[in-house]
Structure formats: structure tokens, C-alpha cells
């Protein structure tokens, strides 16, 4: 028996490692080590003052304390508010559109056309889109001049000088960029529901509204959760649009300064300690959201699924 054990056999395991190695090496170099460094720096006083570099001196949690004083909470609030302005209409509109598009009774023509159109803004360079909005909504830009010439306004509305005007524009852009994507995801989810279920509901006398709330919504809940969480993570990353729209100022009065803009400012001014602290907090929040995504996706999918399939085949 012992001798038998020593006989080499055919094993492909090593190729598995070969194939996944590039991914993990790249991840290690470009993400994991940087992340470790980021966390490390967050506990140090380390910044540039003029041409002089101060630090790195270990300061414990001082950077985190300084964060709170330097308006971190306000920027977090800004981020959440602007995310909500975009997300709430986005999810409502997407749900309604998904319901309409999949409703056989409505027989909407040109579905493909509408899908193509509503997804398009998602592919637009956010910075260019923001630049466009800046030009269009500037004090004497086309939007104001149109509104005045139509007699709706008597003098230009200064969108970018009012808090809610600017936040509203950021929200509007986020809405425009993402509602198409969400609609298509939700549609796919609705179409994944067994059509017999809708037929049964119809035979049972469900109105379209009842069908939507009693059948469709519960069935697509996992996708809704997925959309919600990924959108939250997207919201946390909000940067390009307010950055360009307000020229990195978060104007007016830092009311549109997002967390990543804040991080970006610290990175530009080479205040590594503070940038590190912002990153760590963002990382923790994202990690929690990542865990949630993991559990929504793996409720009945992923590896376990593949294993099951394989086992069935082997039998």
C-alpha cells in the first residue's frame, strides 16, 4: 500500500494556481499593499507644509479626531443627501418602467429604442457630462436664456450659487446616469420570474397594481437589494460630477463637497495622515456593504451552485 501511495498521479491542481496567479499578484500589488499602507499612514502625522515634509510621526487616532473637526461629518451628509436626491427618483422611475416594459397588456412599442436611450447617459464620461451641465446651467447659459425667453424667469436663476440648485443638479445627473441601468437590471429580474406566475395571478383576479405589489416586488427583492447596495457604494464614490461642476470647491460653501472630493483634496495637498484616515473610514463602510453584496449574491448562487452541478454530473 505504501508503495502504491508514492506513485505519482495526474493532477491539474497546479494549473489552477497558475491561472489565478496574475489576478492575485496584481491585486496584491495595486490594491492590497496600497490599502495596508493607507491604513498605516492613517495613524501618522505626515503632511507637506510648503516644501517641508512633516513626519511621519505616529499620532494614534489624532487624524480621526481631526477629521471630525474638519467637517468630515458634513461632507458625509452632503454625499448622502446628493445620493438620495438621485437615488429615490431613480428607483421609483426604474421600478415603474420595469413594470411597464414587462407588462404584456401594455404592449409598449419601441421597447428596444427606449432601453437604448435611457441607458445611454450611463456611458457618458461623467466629467464631460458635468462640464456640459456646467455650461448649460451657468448664469447666462442656454437653460437660463431659454427660460427667460419663454417668459418663465425674469432674470437668470443662479443654479450653481444656491445650495439646493447645485445639489439638485448633481442629483439630477446621477439620476440620469443611473436610472437606465437600474431599469434594465430590474427588467431582467422581472422577466426571470416564471410567466405562469403572472398568468395564475391574472386568473386569480389580480389587478396590474396588485400583481406588481404582491407578485413582482417580492420576487425581485434580491435584485432590489443588490441595486440598493451597489448604488450606495456608487454614491460613496461620488466624485467626478461635483468635482467638475464646482471646480473642486464643493461650492457654494462646501455644501456639495463629497467624501471622495475631501480625500482628493488631502491627496493633492499631500496630507497623507488625513487622507489615510478618510480612506480607512470609507474602507470600513464599503467593506460592510461588500459583505452585504456577498450575501445577497450567494444566497443561492456562486460556488455552491457550481459544486452541485459538478456533483450531479459525476454521478
Amino acid at each position, binding site marked *: 500500500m505504501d508503495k502504491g501511495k508514492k506513485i505519482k498521479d495526474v493532477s491539474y491542481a497546479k494549473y489552477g494556481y497558475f491561472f489565478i496567479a496574475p489576478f492575485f499578484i496584481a491585486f496584491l500589488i495595486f490594491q492590497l499593499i496600497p490599502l495596508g499602507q493607507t491604513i498605516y499612514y492613517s495613524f501618522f502625522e505626515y503632511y507637506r507644509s510648503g516644501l517641508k515634509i512633516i513626519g511621519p510621526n505616529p499620532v494614534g487616532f489624532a487624524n480621526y479626531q481631526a477629521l471630525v473637526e474638519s467637517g468630515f461629518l458634513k461632507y458625509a451628509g452632503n454625499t448622502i443627501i446628493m445620493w438620495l436626491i438621485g437615488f429615490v427618483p431613480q428607483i421609483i422611475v426604474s421600478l415603474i418602467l420595469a413594470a411597464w416594459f414587462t407588462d404584456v397588456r401594455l404592449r409598449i412599442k419601441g421597447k428596444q429604442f427606449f432601453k*437604448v436611450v435611457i441607458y445611454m447617459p450611463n456611458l457618458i*464620461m461623467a466629467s464631460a457630462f458635468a462640464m456640459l451641465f456646467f455650461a448649460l446651467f451657468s448664469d447666462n447659459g442656454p437653460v437660463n436664456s431659454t427660460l427667460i425667453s419663454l417668459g418663465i424667469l425674469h432674470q437668470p436663476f443662479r443654479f450653481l450659487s444656491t445650495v439646493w440648485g447645485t445639489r439638485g443638479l448633481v442629483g439630477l445627473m446621477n439620476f440620469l446616469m443611473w436610472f437606465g441601468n437600474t431599469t434594465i437590471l430590474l427588467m431582467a429580474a422581472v422577466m426571470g420570474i416564471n410567466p405562469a406566475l403572472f398568468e395564475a395571478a391574472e386568473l386569480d383576479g389580480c389587478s396590474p397594481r396588485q400583481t406588481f405589489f404582491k407578485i413582482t416586488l417580492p420576487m425581485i427583492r434580491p435584485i432590489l437589494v443588490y441595486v440598493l447596495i451597489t448604488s450606495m457604494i456608487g454614491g460613496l464614490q461620488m466624485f467626478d460630477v461635483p468635482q*467638475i461642476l464646482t471646480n473642486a470647491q464643493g461650492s457654494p460653501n462646501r455644501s456639495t463637497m463629497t467624501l471622495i472630493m475631501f480625500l482628493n483634496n488631502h491627496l493633492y495637498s499631500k496630507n497623507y495622515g488625513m487622507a489615510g484616515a478618510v480612506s480607512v473610514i470609507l474602507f470600513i463602510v464599503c467593506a460592510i456593504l461588500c459583505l452585504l453584496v456577498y450575501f445577497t449574491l450567494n444566497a443561492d448562487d456562486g460556488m455552491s451552485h457550481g459544486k452541485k452541478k459538478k456533483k450531479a454530473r459525476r454521478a
Partner: protein
Amino acid sequence: MEKKPSHVRTVIAYIVLIILTFLCLFFFYILIINASRHHSEIQKGFSFLPGTAFVRNLKNVLKDANIPVVSGIKNSLIVSSLSAAIATYFSALTAYGLYAYNFKLKKPAFIFIMLILVMPTQVSALGFINLITKMKMLNTLYPLFLPSIAAPAVFYFMYSYMQSSLPIELVEAARIDGCGEFRTFNRIVLPIMKPAMAVQAIFAFVSSWNNFFIPALVISDNSKKTLPILIASLRSADFLKFDMGKVYMLITIAIVPIIIVYIALSKYIVAGVALGGVKE
């Protein structure tokens, strides 16, 4: 008998859809109109009709020494194409490694990638910039596409696609036919993955094309700038002194190629989006 309410709903649906379509298209319409108008015309107000200065604006933008558009387009094309190629190839490779082989770390590796599936890269930007500086890659294009080797979302798409379209028996048949493991991947697996690769290549290309945060931190040299950085620099310049025709033209240059590609491939892209979030 229920025809009437359904009819009303259809009308409402069309009205809402038309409003949304208007919202989505209107801004691009103005963009292209304005890109074809003279600075002075734009200042005067809004018009629904295109102007005559399209070529002039284009020439002006391309000539402007402060905004190196031509090299910007070139850099953006290089970075985005390489990102797309690298992200799709290596994601397929990783997905295949985890799909087709059994090894001890298989499950932990899979769980790990699933955990970082939606982790934003911004959180490690500080360390990333530091590392890039140490590796002397600051102001080069490498840091903009090399990290694409590890693209968890693309990986997940590829993995799901393999589950539905790549029977393991095919790989085994290749083994028996005398095909080496790497050759099997390149000659059998990749052709089968083509549809998934195409869709993901488009997404990877677009997101790299539009990427602003990291390039803005890595690149400061004018000749290495990508389009989004150029647009940002436009914004930070004294805006009012600017020729608005040129501004709109630059935005057009940044946006329109993507829109053209999108319209040409919209069928596949929309189908790809639908696949992205849904299992199987």
C-alpha cells in the same frame, strides 16, 4: 372589457417615456448644436439649429497648445484599449482557473474575490499613489491599465458565463485530445467565451475612457493627460475667457465616439447589462 384602463395606462406610459427620452437626449442635442456654433452665437442665446462653425471649432480645439487634445485622445485610446484587453483576458483566465480546476485554495480564493466584488479602488488611492511614485510610474500610463488585471466584477461575469456555457467535459475532451492546459484555454475556452468577452471589453473600455479620479492623481504631465483630465483642466481655467465653441467641441470629442460605438452595439450592451446583475 378591461380595455379602457389599459389604454389609459398605455398613454401615460408613453408620455412618461417620451419625457425621459427627451431628458436623456436633449442635453446631447444642445451639446452637438453648440459645438457647431460660434462663440459669439452661443453667448447670444440658445438655438435649435446647428451653426456653421463645427469645423472651425474642431480645428481650434485641435490646435490649442494648452489642451493637447490629439495626444489626449491617443492616451485615452491606449489606456482604454489596453484596460479592456487586459481586464477581459485576465478575468477569463482567473475565472477559468477557479471554474475548471480543483485545488485547496479554490474556495477561499473565490470567496475573497466575491468579497471585494464591489470594493471601490478609491479607498486605497493614497497607498496606490505612493507605490506608483516609488515604482517610478508616476506620469506614465502603466498605472492606468495594469491594475485591470484584477477586475473582480469582470471576473464574476466571466465565471457566471462559464457556469452556463462551458461544460467541463469540453475541457476534458481537449485533455484527451492532447491539448495542453494553456492551449486549451486559448484555443477552446476563449472562443467559447467570445460573447462574454466582447460585452465586458466594451464596459471595461468605457469605464476606463471615462475614468477621472485615479488618472488625475497619477498624471500631471501635459503630454500624458487623458481626456477627462483635459476637460477638468478646462473647468479650472478661467472659464469666462474661454471660447465656448471650443468647450462644447472638446466635450463632444470626449462623448461622441462612445455614443457612436454604443449605438452600433447597443443590442449587445443592453443585453450585457441585463446579464450583469442577474444570476444565470
